[in-house]
């Protein structure tokens, strides 16, 4: 009798928690949607499922830590892995929202190089492993510039005389303030110290003021290519992979300006308290292997963070990546740590400036 009751209650609990039971053999992986998610599905999810039998449930989000914070604070963590930008990884880690990731778990490169040497600097973080280098670039539609001179430099973003028309920029201070100062002639290594001062910030906002009334602000990664295709803007900032997809997959006459591209990393992080920690770690390790990273680059033009992966790619593809030497000459490296400290105040100033 007692056993029966126990069985019955077990059954009902099992029924109630069926989602959890299901979760035992699946992982909820959250990413940014569109071409980017597709590249991850092809390069990571499918091979992982084939290898382990674990089903991957793919969800979309639009970046940021809000949902993770909500899940962690309520103790109901339903996301197992989240594709986060490096600044969010650093911040989420500092706020205790992410599970630590032991770098020792990471596989060596396929050429035998230990992981800590195979990955580029900054890719391995205590809470995540970055898998790609994303680049913030400028893009334009070359069919709109028949015969005339085409924009080619960052300075052209701010040159309304030579290149009239509206531009689209991402609605955040990150990147825009750096570009403003760079275009204003500030040396790259002086940018962040300058942004710590009132004068430096005012100078950046003054530079942005010169084009403010001609700027359309975008918020999701898919928007820039759309705005460009619709003719809403003549020039836009964008993640290079999105423009690359538009160029090579959809055949759009877009052109990328690599001058002063701002590179930052993106990778898998695990929300604190996930019920599938072991599997999630397994996925993070699997998806950061040499093969997986090289595969992803074939689906979207973001640079792999492993040197061994880059070595596997053909020349034509390598030239389209942010890390190609020709593209990389004037690269500006985004300072995640600096932005952790200053994001709050600059966000506030940026929003106030925007609303004025």
């Amino acid at each position, binding site marked *: 009798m007692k056993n029966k009751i126990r069985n019955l209650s077990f059954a009902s609990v099992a029924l109630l928690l069926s989602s959890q039971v299901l979760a035992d053999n699946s992982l909820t992986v959250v990413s940014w949607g569109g071409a980017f998610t597709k590249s991850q599905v092809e390069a990571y999810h499918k091979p992982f499922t084939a290898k382990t039998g674990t089903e991957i449930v793919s969800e979309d989000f639009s970046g*940021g*830590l*809000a*949902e993770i*914070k909500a899940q962690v604070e309520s103790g109901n963590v339903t996301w197992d892995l989240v594709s986060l930008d490096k600044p969010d990884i650093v*911040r989420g*880690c*500092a*706020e*205790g929202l992410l599970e630590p990731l032991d770098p020792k778990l990471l596989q060596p490169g396929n050429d035998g190089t230990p992981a800590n040497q195979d990955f580029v600097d900054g890719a391995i973080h205590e809470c995540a492993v970055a898998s790609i280098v994303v680049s913030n670039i400028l893009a334009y539609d070359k069919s709109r510039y028949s015969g005339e001179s085409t924009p080619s430099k960052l300075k052209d973003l701010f040159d309304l005389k030579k290149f009239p028309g*509206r531009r689209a920029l991402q609605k*955040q201070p990150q990147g825009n303030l750096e570009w403003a100062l760079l275009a204003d002639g500030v040396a790259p290594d002086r940018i962040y110290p300058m942004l*710590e001062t009132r004068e430096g910030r005012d100078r950046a906002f003054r530079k942005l003021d010169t084009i*403010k009334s001609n*700027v*359309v*602000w975008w*918020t999701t990664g898919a928007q820039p290519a759309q705005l460009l295709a*619709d*003719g*809403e803007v003549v020039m836009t900032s964008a993640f290079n992979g999105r423009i690359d997809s538009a160029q090579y997959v959809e055949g759009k006459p877009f052109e990328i300006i690599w001058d002063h591209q701002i590179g930052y990393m993106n990778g898998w992080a695990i929300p604190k308290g996930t019920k599938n920690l072991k599997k999630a770690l397994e996925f993070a390790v699997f998806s950061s292997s040499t093969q997986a990273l090289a595969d992803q680059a074939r689906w979207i033009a973001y640079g792999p963070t492993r040197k061994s992966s880059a070595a596997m790619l053909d020349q034509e593809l390598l030239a389209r990546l942010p890390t190609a030497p020709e593209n990389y000459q004037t690269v500006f490296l985004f300072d995640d740590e600096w932005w*952790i*400290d*200053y994001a*709050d*105040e600059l*966000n*506030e*100033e940026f*929003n*106030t400036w*925007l*609303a004025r």
Partner: protein
Amino acid sequence: MKYEAISAGALDESQTIGTPSTNNSLKMQLRRAERWNRTRAFLLVVPLLLFVGVTFIMPIMDMLHRSIHDPLIVDHLPKTVAALESWDRQQIPEDTTYAVLAQELVSLHKQRDLAKVAGRLNTEFSGMRSLLSKSARGLARLNAGAGLESAADTREAMIRIDARWSDIQPWAAIKNLNSRYTLSYYLAALDMHYDVSGDISAQPERRQIYKALLIKTFAMSALITVLCLLLGYPLAHLLATLPESRSNLLMIMVLLPFWTSLLVRTTSWIVLLQTEGVINDVLISIGLISERIRMVHNLFGTVIAMTHILLPFMVLPLYSVMKNISPSYMRAARSLGAKPAYAFIHIYLPQTLPGIGAGAILTFILSIGFYITPALVGGRSGQMISNFIAYHMQTSLNWGLAAALGGILLGMVLLLYFVYNRLIGINSLKVG
């Protein structure tokens, strides 16, 4: 009257004596019967009550609580808060206070809690996040090395790490948050703050944003409400007076967008209004304009799209009121000698006031809380308060401020409701 009084007195007496009269037991029976009826009625609505409680009341209560609840600093810097208790805000605190803070900062840094604390303080005084994380890192390095001998050394070390420690501002920021419940989020939502001396004062102009935004949100909502009324009134009148067969068709045309997804409608407005869009194409081709006009990603686009989306909320209450106004009123007015315009203004319009009130209040309340449409077509100038609430929820993670902005919005709506009730009477509200 007299008899009643006497019998009532008799009843009282019988009760005090304790002999239940027939009258009394009748009352009890009635009460019992009614209690059963009430219980049954109550049981019928229990599921709904629970649902509303869990999905509506509790979140709102939680939001209102969050907008004033702020235990972070008290919980994480308890000793510093205690040490600052007697601080007079006139000059920098005693060296021991520096030592206490240094110790707490380092341990917070180790426990990964510093980011939260620094983030909260940063919303009080811009720059606190960088100051605290820089100091914590520096102090942790010093501790790992030789360590600091005295409290005075600690003070000097901190000032060496960042000169801002020689100022009273960071200390005032900590002291301002020395209570578990605070108004600081509400102050921030109204462009005010506790200043260095602990008094409430306006934010410097450079940081003012929400007051103007609130006013803009209200102005936009009022404009949208007026536009909806101007467009919806004749339409509702037509609907109410046309013969059934034709009015049904028209009604479906009014409701069709109502059944379409909000996102679909909003994005179709983008397609229509954008620079290379249909409307610009048409205007150019008929030669009305030579330069393409910018109609989307700005205030104009937001107002147009929101007016379209909210129009049914104006039309339906108006329609339901107009449907019940007999055409004989207008005929009576005309036969009594009133010109059409006079009859409309003095007879028809006043009778549609409950519908206008319901439609306007519905449209206005919905539009001050509108989020998706301004987010998609608003651009820079078409942003409303809800977009900033979303920003603080999703991006800056300043949930306290988001809650305070939400609380203000809620308060405004309740105020509006109250005013409406006073002026027109909520009972006359006719929604459908």
